Structures are given as structure tokens and as C-alpha cells.
């Protein structure tokens, strides 16, 4: 990696100040994406602002019918949190499938959400659950927040501070892993909750995680795996690579949707 200045602020205000003062500074949470990029010299920030010392970014709590998860909450904590396991078991189960033990004990939900990797798990979950992303400046709905491959509504220097998720009536997740990276090749999160029936897919879309509206309509009418089994997605909107064609991924979204509904019960 190239040399950079290292900061470890203890408050969001200080972190935001550091980032505002230097447009080439980058925040780092778990570092599961930024660190490899730094090591490969694919990224050359002037400074790295480490968010791990900010206590206000931690913690999971229930506020009425909403689960609020601090941005620096690790995947392991999401997977094992009693609040999440009882309120949104599908989210806890999903977090338990991210990466491996080491990744789950370093990587954070806020980092994953802010990065919006098209193969990451959380974006589809938040889209399906109708989550809201809280930043140091504002609240943004998941629908508005995720804007394509590695693209979000975050402005320069804006930090994700927490994720708010309304507790659903039921939810389920299923994914097919890429055999090499073990990231999602196609994953589908389904939820029935205060925002109605919502379905979102990751890994497969040419433009990142996306809502599958035709499946939402089908499930709203008939919440069963069979309801989505016949829905075919347009391969033109899918991503193809050496691991699988767009046609294959389109097919996988249907299969995973079916399994996610079965999982949700």
C-alpha cells in the first residue's frame, strides 16, 4: 500500500470534520474492501479515518417496531444478536453466511451498506425489508440509497451512522455463492412487512442489487414458493462472467426467490 495519514477519531463529528477537510481522505470501518484495495495499490487515499473508535456507531437496539443497528456493528454481532434473532431471524441468518469467521468479526454492516458491492448481502436485505439508512446528515430510504454498482446516495464525506429496519411479519433469504469468491452469485431476500411484500436480489443484476417488482406482486397475491417459481427475469438486466452467464443468473434469481419464500415460511 501507499503511505497515508491515519486518524482515529472518537466521535462522528470529528470523523466528519476530518473527511470534510480532506477530499482525498477515506473512512474505514472493517476494512474488508478498502484494505485489500490498499494492499493491491488500487487506491491511494491521502488519509484513512478509522471509525472503530467511535462508540456512538455501535450497538443494536429495538425502538418499538424498528430495529436500529449501529453502522460499526460487525456481521458476527448481527448474526448473534438476540434482538435481531427474535425480530428478524432471516437477517441474523444472512449475516451468518457473510464471508468467513474472520470477515464476520471484522466487517461491519455500515461498511457493507456504504460500499454497496453488487455481490454483498445487506443491500438486498435492506431493500426488501424497507430499511432506512441514517447518516450524519439525514435519513435515506434503502430504495433511494442504493443507486447501482458501488454507487449510493452518500455525498462526499457523509457517513452512515445507523440502519433502521422495521420488524417484518416474515422474511427469508437464499443465495447461491460464487464458487471462487463465495460472494453471492444470486441471492434473494423476501419480506412481508409494514411496507408490504418486497423482494430484492443481489449478485445477479447488471446494475447492482435490485427490487423484483413482478415477484412482489405475485407474492402479495399468493405468498408461496410456487407464486414466484414461474417468473422469469430478463437476462438482459443480469450480469454475466466466467462463473455464469446472464441467463444462468436470471434463472438463479427465480430459484433463490422460491427458496427464500420457503425459508420465510
Amino acid at each position, binding site marked *: 500500500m501507499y*503511505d497515508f495519514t491515519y486518524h482515529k477519531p472518537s466521535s462522528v463529528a470529528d470523523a466528519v470534520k476530518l473527511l470534510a477537510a480532506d477530499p482525498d481522505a477515506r473512512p474505514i470501518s472493517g476494512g474488508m474492501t478498502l484494505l485489500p484495495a490498499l494492499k493491491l495499490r488500487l487506491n491511494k487515499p491521502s488519509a484513512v479515518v478509522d471509525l472503530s473508535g467511535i462508540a456512538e456507531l455501535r450497538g443494536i437496539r429495538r425502538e418499538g417496531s424498528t430495529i436500529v443497528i449501529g453502522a460499526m456493528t460487525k456481521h458476527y454481532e448481527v448474526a448473534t444478536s438476540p434482538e435481531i434473532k427474535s425480530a428478524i431471524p432471516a437477517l441474523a441468518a444472512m449475516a451468518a453466511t457473510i464471508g468467513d469467521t474472520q470477515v464476520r468479526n471484522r466487517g461491519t454492516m455500515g461498511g457493507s451498506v456504504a460500499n454497496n458491492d453488487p455481490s454483498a448481502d445487506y443491500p438486498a436485505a435492506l431493500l426488501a425489508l424497507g430499511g432506512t439508512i441514517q447518516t450524519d446528515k439525514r435519513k435515506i430510504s434503502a430504495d433511494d440509497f442504493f443507486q447501482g454498482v458501488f454507487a449510493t446516495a452518500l455525498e462526499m464525506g457523509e457517513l452512515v451512522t445507523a440502519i433502521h429496519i422495521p420488524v417484518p411479519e416474515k422474511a427469508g433469504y437464499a443465495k*447461491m455463492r460464487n*464458487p*471462487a469468491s463465495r460472494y453471492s452469485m444470486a441471492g434473494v431476500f423476501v419480506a412481508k412487512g409494514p411496507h408490504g411484500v418486497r423482494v430484492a436480489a443481489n449478485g445477479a443484476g447488471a446494475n447492482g442489487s435490485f427490487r423484483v417488482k413482478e415477484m412482489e406482486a405475485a407474492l402479495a397475491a399468493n405468498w408461496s414458493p410456487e407464486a414466484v417459481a414461474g417468473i422469469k427475469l430478463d437476462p438482459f438486466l443480469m450480469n454475466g462472467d*466466467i*462463473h455464469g*452467464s446472464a441467463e*444462468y443468473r436470471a434463472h438463479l434469481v427465480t430459484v433463490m426467490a422460491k427458496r427464500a419464500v420457503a425459508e420465510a415460511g
Partner: protein
Amino acid sequence: MNVVVPFEGIGASVRRKEDLRFLSGRGQYTDDINRPGQTHAVILRSPHAHAEIKGIDIAAAKAMPGVLAIFTGADMAAENIGGLPCGWQIHSKDGSPMAEPPHPVLAVGKVRHVGDPVAVVIAETKQQARDAAEAIAVEYAVLPAAATMEQALAPGAPQIHEGAPGNLCYDWHIGDRAAQEAAFARAHKVITFETTNNRLVPNAMEPRSAIGEYDSTSGDYTLFTTSQNPHVIRLLMGAFVLHIPEARLRVVAPDVGGGFGSKIYHYAEEAIVTWAAGKVKRPIKWTADRTESFMSDAHGRDHITKAELAVDAQGKILGLKVHTHANMGAYLSTFAPCVPTYLYATLLAGVYTTPVIYAEVKAVFTNTVPVDAYRGAGRPEATYLLERLMDVAAKELGLDRVEFRRKNFIPPDAFPYQTPVALQYDSGNYHATLDACLEAADWKGFEARRAAAAKGKLRGIGISTYLEACGIAPSAVVGSLGARAGLYEVGTIRVHPTGSVTVLTGAHSHGQGHETTFAQLVADRLGVPVAQVDVVHGDTAKVPFGMGTYGSRSLAVGGSAMVKAMDKIIAKGKRIAAHLMEASVEDVEFDRGIFRVAGTDKSKTLADISLAAYVPHNYPIEELEPGLEETAFYDPKNFTYPGGCHVAEVEIDPETGKVEVVNFTAVDDVGRVINPMIVEGQVQGGVAQGIGQALLENAIYDQQGQLLSGSLMDYSMPRADDLPPVGVATHTTLCTHNPLGVKGCGEVGAIGSPPAVMNAVVDALRDYGVRHIEMPATPAKIWNIIHGGRRMAAE
């Protein structure tokens, strides 16, 4: 009080002595070594598959902080540094020697694959070296690339080397063509089969690393390197590249974290750090990162083959014809030419009585990383071809695949058995390993398991009855076939004054457990407890000589050298014992550490004898030298021939195409087993790599010669959850020509398993009219087949 001494000799599952060190993080790997005053090298590599180097501007880089030196190919050429040598010369059908183009250590004039080394920066820190490497300006004129063998052989293809017209390295053959044609003429049926053996990236856990050091007071060079054969590296680098006499060059291969063949070869980086250390007069360390490993470690496999099998009306094989294209990559790696010839085509008889075989092999240069031996080397390619072909043929002949194999087995009473492709098998019992494996895998119960398969899953079972050849030898024969080295091994047994033993071996352990297995040989023969045996390897300054570890040779060849040395120890010990016990030598018997005068109660321990040998107060000094240390060189009379049977059982999820190996059974004949636990581990490791090849791994280049699967994000390595429980058993027939009766177990897993897995996959898809599926059987590929997909389905 009786002390119970556990049996530690041949056949005991002694716990691996080296594991405490490895498992507690106290292994000493090359990158763990730091020499006083050490500097760091970073190698600038070609980003292009094929390009002319128009110019290299190092001025800016040289002025950067911490930079001590920058060298290019021109600097090495100016000092008459040789190219990297090839250790095996193949002759084409017409008698002409193979094309053997120069392989400069640092590229001169042209780069020929992505990763080809262009310049080296030596700096105080690795960071500084990397910064400076980025500041080197290389002007390339990019040339069209020949990234695949198809591209390289096409008319008008880009010419990679001046001395290799049409990018052909050699056009070799073996066997009797006329006899083959005659056999085919009277065949009841000829089954044709085409297949590609997928290209693999070895991916040892420890990346390659090298430290070069120069002592200006003595003129001595030292190279620490991740090598499977330090003496071979000393020989090749000293004699052919850097022109340093052996006595001035020490090569140390300390703990090495996996090799699988990829650490046999003499690599550019070894020569670079050693030579440059003499220039900058400071030690220089280079360690690959994973990206560099992908583009600089020799790859494996990569064959395209067309085969025809002639069978009579009774299902007996009449003949086999094989035509193979083998990818050499951009340059000839150390042993590359012998892999698709003498380690491949000579194995095409397998375990069958095929009376005539004719095989042609064309070796092709491409703009890719060099290809060389990888766990199994040639034998997995031959086995995969044969064992898939046996299944395809059985199906087309309407025969049961097990019975078709059994009908064509070399019978157990036919040994020694001469094949039509040069090899003479010394021993084996293929019926026995087959029967034992079918029993252990409950082959008979499969249909019930298929019926009971998890909901919607497609279950299949596959078999492979394989044979391989290990401990390649004898030196005179391999020399006549083109080897530029001998293939013996060296062992020294040093009995210390109080009776403990140091073993010095030319074999090298990089995961095999030699420190334990070799100590067991000493325990068994000399009666010395394993804890009192030290095994030394991997250092040319300590071990007299050696050819190293590859081709499952360590025990069959290296262990046999130790036995010969121990026999010399025993012979000398008897003479000392005879003197001490005032008996005649003929009357002295030796068994596990005790010298006895036959028919009396007189005895001496090995420790008594060694003490007398080192403190020769009462000693036959007129006729015997003091000391108790013996060295033996062992040159085998033949290869060894492990063989056996593997059965794989798979379940396929038809909705996703994902194949799961749910059960794997191996019954191998590896000759006498020294440590059953280590053999089991070796087989399991080999099976893991075989399943990797069958289901996951694939090195894919695009048409421009960029490696698309150039990182672990895109190259699928097998992981623990990809692997089933692997049941391992052995059925032994002894090797008849080495003193231990051993055959070798390091590669059997990787050789026998890929066709067993693929035969199971094809079996699982039997309702889909599938004749063949190319490796790796990825989910996407299987899904395409099941769903009558488009182009990929026919592969």
C-alpha cells in the same frame, strides 16, 4: 518396572514430529528468515502477453528514496548470465530435437506472457522497491498474442519464439502405429472421445520466496528458497545461469509450505536475487504476493486430446490411439517437456491389457505462464482420459462399466507385465483393489441410495481404476529418454557416539511428514526411538547431495538410499561387535538395535557399538576406521507402480447445477505402508486437489492472454466444505525392486479422483443424454446441460 515402548517402526501411525512446530506457528519458512543488512527486491512484470520492449527508462526510479539498484535483462546479458535451462530434451518423430528457445532471466527485447519479469528494483524496504518499480517507464509495442493452443497453431499465428516455427516445441510419438492400425482394422467397434484437461494454478499456501546473499570475504553465495530440491537448484543455477561453482554456492530450502510440483523448477527470481546480491553486496529478499504467484508459478495440465479405443465383440480392448496437444506456455519450464510425453503417454495402458497403443503429442508454445508438472504430472491427464473413455466405451458397448474394466484388467499373475508403451509393471492386483473399493463404497447399495436421494437431487456414482508411475528411474534409462539429470537419491545415516541418529536426506519435505516417516525407518531397522532420530534435509551445506522430492519418490528412492546406508552401518557394526564380543563376524546377528552372537547370550546394543566406534580404545583399528556414519546413493531399477480404485458419489441440485461430492472412497495400493496416518492424509490431500480439478479449478485466459481467473476471487480453490468424508484404505502388493517394497502415495489422490468424480457426475445426469462433460463441472455448466442450454451444453 516395565516401560512400555510404543511400536514406532514400519506400520505405526506415529504422530508427525513436525506438526508441533507447524501448528504453533514456529515453522521457519523462507520469508521468516531475515538476514543482517537485508534489502528487498520487487520485480516489474509485463502487463502484456506479447510485446516488444522498445525501451526501459529507469532514471526516475533510480533516484527514488531507498533504491540501491535496478537491473534489466540488458544488465544480465552484459555479464553473460545464462538463460533458465530446461532439464529434459524431447526428440520429435523425425529425430530432430525439440525447439528450445532461450529463456532469459529478465526479458530481453520481448515479453512473452503477462508476468514475464522485465526489471528488478533493489531497495532498503519493499515499499520503496515497489514505489520505484512503478516509476520505471517501459515502452512496449504490443504484439498480437497466441493465448490458446488453437490460436498458436492457427495459420499466420503470432510467432512467439524465433526458433520455434509455428509455435511448435515438438511433435513426438510413442508406440507402434502400424500395429495400432491393424488392430483397429479388425475392431468390432471404435469409440472416439475428445477432451480437454483443464489448466490449473498450483496455489501452494506459501508463496514462493527467495533470499540471495553474498559474502565478499569468501566469495560465497547463499540462496534461501522455497524449493522442493535445493541441490537441483544449485546445479542448474550454478552451472547454467550464474556460473558459480558448487563449492561457492549454498542453497537452503527451509520449511516449505506446499509445493505440488510448482517448487521443483528453477525460477528467474532465484537467479535474480543471488546474482544481484553479488552486485549490491547485501542480502536481498523477494517474496511473491498471491497475484505474482498466479502469473509466475508454473501452471499444470492443459491438454487437448482426441482418443480412439478399438474393442472386439467380447468387450476386450484391441488398441488405443491418442492424439494430444500439450500447452508449454511461453517458455520451457525445467521439466515441462517430459510431462506430456514420458509421464503421460507411457501411462496410457493404465491397468488394462491393451495390446497396442499409439500416441502422438504435439507440444505448443503460447503467450501464457509456463506449464510444468503439478501433483501427478502427466499421469492425471492419462488417467482422466482413460477412465472417462472406459465409461464412455462401456456405455456405447452396452456393458457394465465395472465388468468392462474387470474384463480388461491385467491379471494378478501377469507380473512383471510389459506394456506396449515402454513401462514394465512389477506388481499389482487391480481386482483386489477394485473389489475392496466396491465393498467399502457399497457400490451394490447405490441404486437404493439413488432412490432415496434428497428431494429433487440427482445422485450418481463413478469409478476410476487407475495406475500411476512413481520414483521415475533408472538414471540410465531416463537419460536415454532425454533427462539431463540423474534420478537417484542420497541418504546419510550418522550414528552419534551415544547411539542417537541423524539422517541426512536429499529428499525434501514440504508437507509430506518426512521427519516422521524417515525416523520410523531408522526406528524399525536400527531400533532407535523416533525421538532420538533427527532428519536433516533442504540444505546443500549439510546434505551430501540429492535430487529432491517430486513424483512421489521420497520414500521409494530416498528411503531406499537410507536403507542401503543403514545396511552399511549394520555391516560395520557387526565387525565392531565381533571384535568386542570376540566372535567371528559371521556369527553376529543384528535385530532392531541389538547385536548378538548367535547361539550365546552375548549381546551389545547399537549404543555400545557406536561408543566404541567414536572412542576406539578397544577397536579393530587396523582393519576398520573409527566412526559410524555411512552414505548411500540409490538408483532404482524401475519406476514403482501404485494403483487402485476410487469411487465417488455425487448429488446434483438440478435447479442450480451445483454438484456435491457426498462420499468418496479410495482403496490404493501404495506398496508397503510405513505410517498409515500419513498415507491417509496424503491421499485425502490429493483427493481434495482432484475434486478441485473436477469441479472447481480452471485457469482461463482471454484471447489477449490476460489471465481472467488471476486471483482467488475468480480461481476456485477447493475448501473444506467442498469436500466429502474421504474413506481411505490400502491393499498392498509389494514393489519388487526396492528394499522397502514401497511405491509412493503423494499423488494417487490427485490422479485417481478426477475421473471418478466426473464419471459420477455423468452418471447422475444419465437421464439427460449426456455423453461427456468437461472439467470443471461448475454449477453454470451443469445447469446449461440440464436446461438444454445453448452452446456450453455440448462441451
